[in-house]
């Protein structure tokens, strides 16, 4: 079955910091969503990422590898976390994405993985 990445993106335009209650609610909702995903057999992998200030970029395309502090590109949007799911088709992926978006209170991008 095809695999999809459901990614959650943060934006510089997002509303300011969440309150502790909002954060707690989102955690609980995502936990419940993850449990449903595992139960359905569609779960492959998922994770939330540390803030982008923790990112390091490695470039080994030249003669000597170059290690730089910071993300690949300074942009107004960045990846916050993702799910990898295994489902029959895009309709199924979109249904999970709808639930996931509501659970984490963020927009979710759905992209298929290349076939093996």
């Amino acid at each position: 079955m095809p695999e999809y990445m459901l990614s959650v993106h943060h934006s510089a335009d997002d509303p300011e910091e969440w309150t502790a209650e909002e954060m707690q609610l989102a955690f609980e909702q995502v936990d419940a969503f993850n449990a449903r995903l595992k139960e359905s057999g569609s779960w492959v992998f998922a994770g939330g990422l540390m803030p982008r200030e923790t990112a390091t970029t490695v470039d080994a395309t030249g003669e000597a590898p170059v290690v730089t502090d910071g993300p690949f590109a300074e942009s107004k949007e960045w990846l916050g976390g993702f799910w990898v799911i295994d489902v029959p088709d895009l309709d199924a992926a979109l249904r999970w994405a709808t639930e996931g978006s509501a659970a984490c209170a963020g927009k979710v991008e759905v992209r298929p993985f290349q076939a093996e």
Partner: protein
Amino acid sequence: MSVRDSFEERVEAVFRDEFGRVVASLARRFGDLDVAEDAAAEALVVALEKWRPPPEGEGIPPNPGGWLTTTAGNRAIDRIRRESRRDDKHREAAMIVDDEPHEPTGPVEDDRLRLIFTCCHPALAPEARVALTLRLLGGLTVAEIATAFLVPETTMAQRITRAKRKIAGAHIPYRVPEVADLPARLGGVLAVLFLVFNEGYWATSGEAPARRELTLEAIRLARVLRGLLPDEPEVAGLLALLLLTDARRAARFAGGELVPLGEQDRAGWDRDEIDEGHRLVRECLARARSTGVAPGRYQLLAAVNAVHTDAADARDTDWAQVAALYDQLVAVDPSPVVRLNRAVALAELDGPAVALAEVDRLAGPAMAGYHAWHATRADLLRRLGRTEQARAAYDAAIGCAGNPGERAWLLRRRDTLVKGS
């Protein structure tokens, strides 16, 4: 030569009728839209040769659709055999055995129904949905679709190619959506057909004020959909709406200039389309009454058009009925466009001042570039004798009217105003 031309025209007509069915059946069987489309096109080439009248050929077969499907299927197998020598083997295995019956087992099993839901999938860009539907179900060539939407053929070809690549790459399924998703997804299909019709009925750019090939195709596809989903009231509603609108086509332009509904020569309306549209509206009303399900937007719009086409003279129009239907429509869809149309009915019922107040309440970014909002305001201001403001509103309407027939009408209205003041 004329005999030959008429033969080719007949084959083309058969092909247009059968194309969607052939492509849809092959798409289900081979799981690949490119294979399906190319094989259908190859089958046409064979048909143009084989179907020639004897002694040159064998004549048009008694079941041309079945013939085309079989021929196209054989072509597709040839192609996949060639490709699968270097490709995966499982596809070959899948395509040799056609395990699903050719005959539809019920309306929801029809291959064309699956295909239309694939073509109108919400994960595709709206303009791609329209193009794919016209190409794969309508059988229009890429060049024809490009001409109808006034974009270069290469642009349209890229749009269709990109959409097909997304369908394959993102695994957009080839099936009728699940019951829970059906209302929303059916809404998407109806919106595509309505858009195709409107682009034909109100060409937004170009020289011709209307493009018949698009209105006809939208009606044809709406009929197909109605045949496939006979119990969906909104499908009946959309078909009725298209018929009752299309029925007025001959009377709506004179010398390239728009003739508004109230001034049209009603003898020029198409009685057959009106009768069929009225029958459908009555059917929708009866069903809504027996099921208790409130009619949706297409049924309500069809009912509005049934009221208009019911009046032998514009003065006989039952405006109270029109306004009541728009009240229901506002409850379903409170968009400014719907409220603007409701205001037009209010003008006839309660006078232009009441209507103008409602129209002005709609002012905002959504209406600022909308020709119909300015044109409606202009007409109301004219009727209220506020000539200078009316002139400014006509200017604004002319500035954003894309349809040449409408622009000509607005220009004359404005100039009449200048002379009269």
